[in-house]
């Protein structure tokens, strides 16, 4: 599903250059549930952004479903994101002026068009049918993150990427979110990549990838 070959990412920082990823090789099979761990500054988020086609590597090749996507134009990448990738962010990133339902519908907007019944279905899957018309500010953090998950999964993407999905939540809501994510993974066979600091959460996954200073230092299967 995901194949990274010698991926590097270098950011220009004024006159110097900042190497965030240096030669990452990674294979992730379809339907896997993978955690990415590592200290801050280790390049986790950059790696996730590259995998999610939000960014392009400086060098190396990235095959997503056997398609080389590392050299695509920004519009082509946008279409890959629309069709293939669902994002779940640490800060939820819902649009504050829209209802939960409208936020979920937005998830399909660029993937071929909104469909209210599918959006309602996605909200039901995360257990928020009764909150469809509430705005994000009227929801708890855990509920907001569940809306965000519904938004990511409503277009039925093969890949969901979560960047510290529980980072802004208390531990009880965090566990709820993890159980929502893992059960979605179990039911729908979605490939799920998750950045986390929490070893307990990571142990819900099938594989843990440890990152340090822009390199994969170890992988453990659970």
């Amino acid at each position: 599903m995901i194949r990274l070959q010698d991926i590097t990412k270098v950011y220009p920082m004024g006159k110097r250059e900042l190497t965030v990823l240096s030669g990452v090789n990674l294979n992730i099979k379809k339907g896997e549930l993978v955690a990415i761990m590592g200290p801050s500054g280790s390049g986790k988020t950059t790696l996730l952004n590259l995998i999610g086609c939000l960014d392009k590597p400086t060098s190396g090749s990235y095959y997503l479903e056997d398609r080389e996507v590392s050299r695509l134009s920004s519009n082509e990448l946008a279409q890959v994101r629309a069709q293939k990738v669902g994002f779940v962010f640490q800060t939820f990133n819902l649009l504050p002026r829209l209802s939960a339902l409208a936020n979920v519908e937005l998830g399909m907007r660029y993937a071929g068009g909104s469909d209210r019944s599918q959006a309602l279905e996605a909200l039901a899957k995360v257990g928020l049918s009764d909150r469809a018309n509430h705005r994000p500010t009227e929801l708890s953090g855990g509920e907001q993150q569940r809306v965000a998950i519904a938004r990511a999964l409503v277009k039925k993407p093969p890949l969901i990427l979560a960047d510290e999905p529980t980072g802004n939540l208390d531990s009880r809501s965090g566990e709820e979110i993890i159980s929502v994510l893992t059960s979605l993974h179990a039911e729908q066979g979605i490939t799920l990549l998750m950045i986390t600091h929490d070893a307990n959460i990571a142990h819900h996954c099938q594989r843990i990838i440890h990152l340090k200073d822009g390199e994969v230092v170890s992988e453990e299967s659970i």
Partner: protein
Amino acid sequence: MKKDQLKKWLEPLETAWVGVATHKLRSSLTILGIVIGVAAVISLMSIGRGAEAQIISNIEKMGSNLITIRPGSFTFGGVRGGVSETLTMEDAEAISQQVPYISAVASSYSSNLQLVMGGENTNAQVNGITPEYMQINNMKVASGASFSEQDYQRGAKVAVFGANVAKTLFGNAPPIGQQMRMGTIIVYVIGVLESKGTRFNSPDDAVYIPLAAMQQAVAQPRTPQGGRIVTAISLTVSDQSQTQNVIDAITSLLRTSHKLAASADNDFNIMSTEEIASTLSETMGTMTLLLGAIAAISLLVGGIGVMNIMLVSVLERTREIGIRKALGARERDIWLQFLIEAAFLTFAGGIIGVVLGWVVAYLVSSMGLMTTVVTADIVILAVSVSIGIGLFFGFYPAWNASRLNPIEALRAE
């Protein structure tokens, strides 16, 4: 499939509407700039158009196929250059006999005379006229009677008053049958003319008596050759397409009979109403354009306001743009969204502006300040210009928004 296509078009519109509706105060302030601009265009243009229409209708009241010949070399704003006593009754007769395509010719001799009625003493322009004059100049009697054939022949001492003069002189008292001294004669008022409501050389402000009576009231001067001098010759053309030929024929006839050298200027001038109308409406057209241009400046300022707001809006919604991009929005989706939003604002402003401008135009004309005409072309122009302004001034902010890097945009506060 068709429903999907429709949705594809409706979704950006809906998104733009949400963008506008969620920032109500800001949106309405932005719209206000456009509203004022468009309203100014509509009301000022309608005033210009109204003035134009009024002038044309005034001229039509004068008679649209009318040609007037006056002595002197050149007339502008009532100031006449050259010798003022060159036209004669004989010229008028020659014209009516020799020039083709003329349906009627009249001469008039005008003088400012003192009117004495009881103890009252006023001055008015008195015109001695020949029988065809009233018909040629499109004048009708509103009350009382006009002159009969015999009045003209005998020089009956009877007068028809212009509406304004009658009102000034007699107030609410009935003018018909009143008697007054006019120069050296006593005249009876037999009729009052319909008001034309015009200001330019208006018959409303004059008194009319038969030319033969005028010759008794004042001595009509004569040229050295013995011609009876008149102050104007007016005539109607039977075929309007021949107006210019008629003018040319009269010019050469009068130059010959006045024995003018080839190098000399005409000692008379000929004006057709057609010519006056085209000159005036051209002038008014320029005025209207000028008014429109001034109003357009305020529209431009409104447009800059739209750009300003859109730039702020893009900045404020950077994170939203990042989210949309992460969800798979292409550059086109983003700039389309902001462009539609800008066009939506200016379109709404345009519509409200049209209504407001219309109301202003209506108030101006209903208060009697000026006649206004709101025409469809002005409305279409104003609305399409306002949408155009939205697209033009919205383009840069929209393009800026579409070029944002999604990762940086997501990190924005």
